[in-house]
């Protein structure tokens, strides 16, 4: 418990530090904020055009499809906002030997790396996601219960950890091969499939995004439960389990990787 309190405290400190850093470069910060707002407006416009052309998709109404799309952006945005620094492990930190710093500090290295950066661009995804969910919800006939609201909220952090876990595993490969940025990218981009109902894909794709790179659990399966009350044990229960498993594997690979870390000459 004390351990967890300390982690939250460290996290808060890093976040505050990041915010201070952003305000240190005011121009960059303001342009960044304006930039991502513009990008999101363009994004929404584009989505609107697509979805007004497609009335329904393999039995999914347009509203349901938009809901799944919007829901998928929330965990993606959270992971992007909070744990984006893992990309830098894959691209730079290990290769340049800058990982040394983390190893000389009395904080778990994975935790330290994950919380060190705050990626505010992610607010774009988050806001878009929340907006799409909010717009579509009233138009969908969903039977709400306290349990469902609770489960829907509870599942979001687990969906987020699926992203984080996959990034952790692929980033940690850098400890052996020095640079794994493109490996992270390859796996990460599979999430694009998860923005839509997985029933629209053929069996192979469906199998891969359900059981191999389980992005289907970041939006589609939770949405099936929320929208249609189908199989909560599978849709929510398995999401939690898979998320825990992916993250556990990530932590395991990470710590194995540290033993293989070779630093860089100085």
């Amino acid at each position, binding site marked *: 418990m004390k351990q967890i309190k300390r982690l939250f405290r460290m996290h808060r400190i890093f976040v505050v530090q990041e915010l201070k850093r952003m305000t240190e470069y005011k121009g960059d910060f303001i342009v960044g904020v304006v930039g991502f707002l513009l990008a999101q407006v363009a994004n929404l416009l584009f989505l609107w055009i697509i979805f007004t052309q497609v009335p329904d998709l393999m039995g999914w109404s347009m509203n349901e499809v938009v809901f799944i799309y919007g829901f998928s952006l929330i965990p993606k945005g959270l992971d992007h906002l909070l744990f984006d620094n893992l990309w830098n492990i894959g691209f730079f930190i290990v290769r340049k030997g800058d990982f040394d710093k983390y*190893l000389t500090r009395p904080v778990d290295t994975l935790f330290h790396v994950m919380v060190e950066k705050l990626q505010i661009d992610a607010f774009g995804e988050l806001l878009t996601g929340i907006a799409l969910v909010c717009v579509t919800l009233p138009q969908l006939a969903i039977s709400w219960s306290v349990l469902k609201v609770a489960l829907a909220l509870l599942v979001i952090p687990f969906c987020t950890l699926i992203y984080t876990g996959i990034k952790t595993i692929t980033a940690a490969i850098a400890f052996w091969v020095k640079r794994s940025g493109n490996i992270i990218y390859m796996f990460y981009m599979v999430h694009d499939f998860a923005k839509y109902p997985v029933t629209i894909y053929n069996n192979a794709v469906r199998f891969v995004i359900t059981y191999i790179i389980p992005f289907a659990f970041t939006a589609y399966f939770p949405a099936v439960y929320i929208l249609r009350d189908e199989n909560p044990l599978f849709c929510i229960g398995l999401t939690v389990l898979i998320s825990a498993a992916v993250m556990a594997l990530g932590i395991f690979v990470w710590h194995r990787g540290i033993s293989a870390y070779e630093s860089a000459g100085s």
Partner: protein
Amino acid sequence: MIHVEKLRKEFKKTIKDPGLKGSIKSLFHPKSEKVVAVKDISFDVPRGEILGFIGPNGAGKSTVIKMLTGILTPTSGVCTINGKNPRENRKSYVKEIGVVFGQRTQLWWDLPLRETYGVLKEMYEVPDDRYKKRMAFLNEVLELDSFITSPVRTLSLGQRMRADIAASLLHSPKVLFLDEPTIGLDVVVKDNIRKAIEHINREEQTTVILTTHDLADIELLSKRIVMIDKGSNVFDGAIADLKSKYGQMRELVFETDDPDPSETLGYCRHFNISEDDCTLECEGKRVKVRFNSASVPVSEMLSYTLAAVNVSDISVKDADIEEIIRRLYKGVDA
């Protein structure tokens, strides 16, 4: 305090033929060889000692330091500090040590220096009152006051190094690792940093492991050195021992009107010794002779020189540690 036993580190190195063709070939048929960077090194460092850790570039110094600081995992062997092993509990181990890599900074680049200390305080769980006292002490020793509110990116190299040393000492570590703390600094700043290190060592009995290429650092700060080359320990002992073991070199300096003193004197011929034991440098009228007093006694050298050429302003000096190390490095290479 620090116990290092048979520490060994092997790296796997991929061998590539030169050029793009070689790179592509190695992509499909990777060839690799085992490189032993550190070969079973052992040594002990008692509490409060400043150990000079030296060796030529690529000797394996950094690899040893990185194993001792928990950054690299040894292939075999153990290192412990106060009985703690970095492989067993890294977090508790690193609380005992402070690390400064001269070529890298651990400060938050974009923020005022003070922010870095604030974060480190939390990381190392330093209580408020101890933190205040500690900052006051570090301020006094390293004179951080004038730039503590400046963003780190604006600090000069000397300021940054002082700031980095302070950062590594914030949690009162028992062992301080300094990897080239004076690299790239001017004479005055170097001197300040050395004084600060000495002060901290005296005041708090902090054990210091110091690697440097500036032998003045070592001569001024440490009594004992460990020298490694090609991954092996080649010397471990007091600087005084090193001097007596390898340091029978003396330096004879004089001025003469002789047009070609090197030819006239011909030390090597006269004493029948090798070039290694006697070298001569001329700078205008000034002649500098480095010779091994074991093969030619100082008195003979002097009387021969005085008899052979017309000499003014003559002096004989002990060779400094730098000369000894130069010979050692050369000897090791050969």
